[in-house]
């Protein structure tokens, strides 16, 4: 088997037999640096990432525009399967925005996208409410990007952050089909 340097048969404390396969230690050679990637490389990488910020704005614009399109699609989806497919698309876009926002200096995008992802996982939530929240959160992220609200976004950013968290808590209210309050975290 590729990468295998040898193996041992062992017996666990609970008496189960298992094989421990020793992995060939050859990546250091390929790396050509016995100490691995030096810490300084992370600083250089961070600078390179910062140079991508303008590109991120373009990616985020496209993703947010797609989210805004999904809101009416969620409302008009003809079957439960179509509704779930639309929710899944929204969850994936929210996941991407959540992952990228803070990396590129927009932690507010990450926070709002996190709330959106939470709301899109609530299968029993009233569909109209879910659509409305999807539309609103997409609009809030658009505002963050267009206003270039980097970092915490100051007072305006705090207002958006609180609103997004309130929406997630509201959506989680069992009276509206949510699992429980306090999931927005």
């Amino acid at each position: 088997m590729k990468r295998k340097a040898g193996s041992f048969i062992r017996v666990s404390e609970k008496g189960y037999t298992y094989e421990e396969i020793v992995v060939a230690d050859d990546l250091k050679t390929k790396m050509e640096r016995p100490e691995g990637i030096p810490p300084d490389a992370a600083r250089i990488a961070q600078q390179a990432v910062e140079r991508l910020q303008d590109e991120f704005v373009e990616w985020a614009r496209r993703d947010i525009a797609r989210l805004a399109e999904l809101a009416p699609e969620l409302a008009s989806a003809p079957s439960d399967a179509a509704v779930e497919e639309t929710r899944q698309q929204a969850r994936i876009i929210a996941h991407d925005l959540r992952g990228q926002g803070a990396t590129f200096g927009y932690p507010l995008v990450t926070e709002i996208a996190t709330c959106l992802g939470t709301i899109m996982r609530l299968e029993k939530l009233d569909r109209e409410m879910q659509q409305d929240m999807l539309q609103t959160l997409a609009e809030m992220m658009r505002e963050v990007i267009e206003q270039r609200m980097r970092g915490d976004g100051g007072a305006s950013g705090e207002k958006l952050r609180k609103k997004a968290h309130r929406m997630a808590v509201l959506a989680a209210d069992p009276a509206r089909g949510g699992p429980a309050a306090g999931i927005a975290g």
Partner: protein
Amino acid sequence: MNLRILIVDDHAGMRRLTKTILAAFGIRRVREASTAEEALALIREFEPDIAIVDFLMPGMTGLDFVKLVRGGSDDPMLPIIMLTASSTQHLVTAARDAGVTEFVAKPVSPEALRRRINEIILHPRNFIRSATFFGPDRRRKRPEAVEEDRRAATPEAGTPEAGSDATQAQERVT
């Protein structure tokens, strides 16, 4: 540097971000796949040393991909770093059961990625095969025990069976 890395992510932006970080690390032999299916083909063709995989993708998820790699690809012991925006216990357990080697939480920072790649290069994990599991050994051993493993596992030493001196030496798992 000859290290080859495969990036598996449906989002072109995330692939660009990861590739940019890797380039700054001096790693330029990088291939990209936008789906898990495409990635499985690249494992055969490109023979990566490490795969960096997003957890949530349309179609086959990152977890499904890991299971397929471990279960029947051309390189079942490929080190896999999973990028995840969620770190719930349920997810972490599922990912470990599937055979993920390392995790990097989103938002991805260059420093976090550097540490995880170094972990794979400098301290490769052995693999465990049992009736119910095949994946990296996530227990950590003392460095000298790891070194003993490697010396004992050279082709000259053969494959020790249970009860042999070499095997008993390896039982000193901390």
